[in-house]
């Protein structure tokens, strides 16, 4: 009959109205600055750069020495709003595989431009850029403070483990596998070289090869 649905709806809202005074579990919202809900693993806000504390080549502070980024600039090229700016270094440093690689002399992300699309994370072949969960980033400075440099962006691998444990474990496993592969390859190469060395009579080595 006409108006039946309206009565039902009114009863439902009335139940909400009165019951919200009596049962606290009905109130699904929290009062944000005072109360917070626990951060959940799938949260993604803005990118950050991962560094390994155990990998220390070259001087400089820990975050600079252990940075996984090799300044390949794929993320810079892929970034849809072009918020990443990278300057490649002149010299090279050893990465975790013991391979000499460039490193970013400058790595800036303008988070006022960043749209949190996560494409940089998806294209990075070196597991160097990941998404952070920190969302309280407002500042009183409109210009400088929203442009994050590499020191502000660098976070240790432990931090990555803390915010995204499952994903970070998978990444670590992948990296370890790659390391073992490259090591076996290196050993195999060394063995082969040794075998070759045994077969071929040793030539006098010219200095400074």
């Amino acid at each position, binding site marked *: *009959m*006409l108006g039946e649905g309206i009565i039902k*709806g*009114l009863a439902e809202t009335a139940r*909400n109205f009165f019951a919200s005074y009596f049962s606290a579990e009905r*109130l699904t*919202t929290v*009062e944000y600055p005072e109360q917070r809900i626990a951060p959940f693993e799938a949260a993604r806000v803005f990118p950050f750069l991962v560094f390994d504390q155990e990998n220390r080549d070259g001087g400089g502070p820990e975050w600079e020495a252990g940075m996984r980024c090799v300044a390949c600039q794929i993320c810079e090229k892929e970034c849809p709003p072009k918020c990443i700016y990278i300057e490649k270094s002149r010299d090279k440093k050893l990465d975790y595989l013991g391979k000499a690689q460039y490193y970013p002399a400058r790595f800036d992300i303008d988070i006022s431009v960043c749209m949190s699309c996560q494409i940089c994370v998806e294209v990075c072949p070196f597991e160097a850029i990941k998404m952070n969960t920190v969302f309280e980033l407002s500042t009183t400075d409109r210009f400088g403070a929203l442009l994050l440099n590499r020191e502000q962006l660098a976070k240790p691998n432990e931090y990555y483990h803390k915010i995204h444990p499952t994903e970070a474990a998978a990444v670590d496993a992948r990296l370890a596998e790659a390391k073992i592969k490259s090591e076996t390859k290196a050993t195999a190469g060394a063995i082969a070289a040794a075998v070759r060395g045994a077969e071929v009579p040793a030539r006098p080595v010219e200095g400074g090869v």
Partner: protein
Amino acid sequence: MNTLDQIFVLLRQWLVSFLPAGWQAAAGVLLSVAVIVGLFPALFALTTVFERKGLGRIQNRLGPNRVGPFGFFQPIADGIKSLTKEDIVPLRADTAVHFLAPVLLVLTVFMGFAVLPMGRNMTLVEMDSGLLFYFAMGTSTELAVFMAGWSSRNKYSLLGAMRAVAQMISYEVPLLLSSVTVVMISGSLSLTKIVAAQNHYSHGLPHWYIFTPWGFAGFLMYAIATTAETNRSPFDLPEGESELVAGYHTEYSGFKFALFFLGEYLAMFSISGLGATLFLGGWTAPFSFLTWVPSWIWFFSKLMLSIFVFIWLRGTLPRLRQDQLMNFAWKFVLPMCLLNLFVAGAWRFMGDGWLRWVVCSAILIAAYVGLGLGGLRRGKIGPRRYRYAE
């Protein structure tokens, strides 16, 4: 008891008595006007915070709770904000009309309060044709709305204003027709006399017009029409913030916008007050043993109850489409109102007894069911076809 009932009347007499005799009448009126102009905006401030908290509770959240204890100082913050905001007038707007529209809106709405009996002997102007005056003033708000939309020189404003005027004119008809039944029965256009006609009790229960078949139907139609008339949800198409930005007041900012907001709520108060006067016995008590409670308390509690129902409806119903709105007005509310005129006449001339109750109720229920089943039924919905390209 009587002193408390008449406390405002006596207070005014006492205050005015300090003046010379020639000035007393004018000063008394000015004093009452000042009270009305002060009281209802204060009630508006209170209602905004209650509305936001009530809607929050309906949606299982807390609502505003930042400013002051339980957020009750929120209207003060809102007021300061709208006073200090920049007043932007569009470059090509009609400046004079753009300025006059909110002023006219609030002015006409305030005029309506002049004839409302807010308690025993508490009517500002004892007008013989009070109801007519009220509707004349209420209709003028449409002019203000269209002035606002037209002068802004903005297509959203104009669209909003046109929607608003179409809606308000459509629902003006059932509003008037549902009120006419009360005039037919009570035989007077004076609101004071309409209240007096309802102010008697039998078996401890009052003779309010809502407790008759034609009064109940009339009250329902009146409630629907007032909801549309004050642009409240579910009939808030003129504002339609998800479709039209904000309707006819898109180009208003700062205090002019606040005036529109104030006007809307004041219209809600005054039309609720009128509804209470016409159908809910005005300032009379709901039971004869409660007549010792001051009359103005009854009037204002009925008014606030109506406001609560408005908020409740807003929290429940989704917004109608324009064609649904118009169909509802012309195909359901208007036929019901016309039939109700006939029923009220029958009620008047069938004399006392149970027969008129049966006959009147039967006619109204049959019409309600019939119109509900047939009148609003739409054609069968089939697959959609783009007809204009054929």
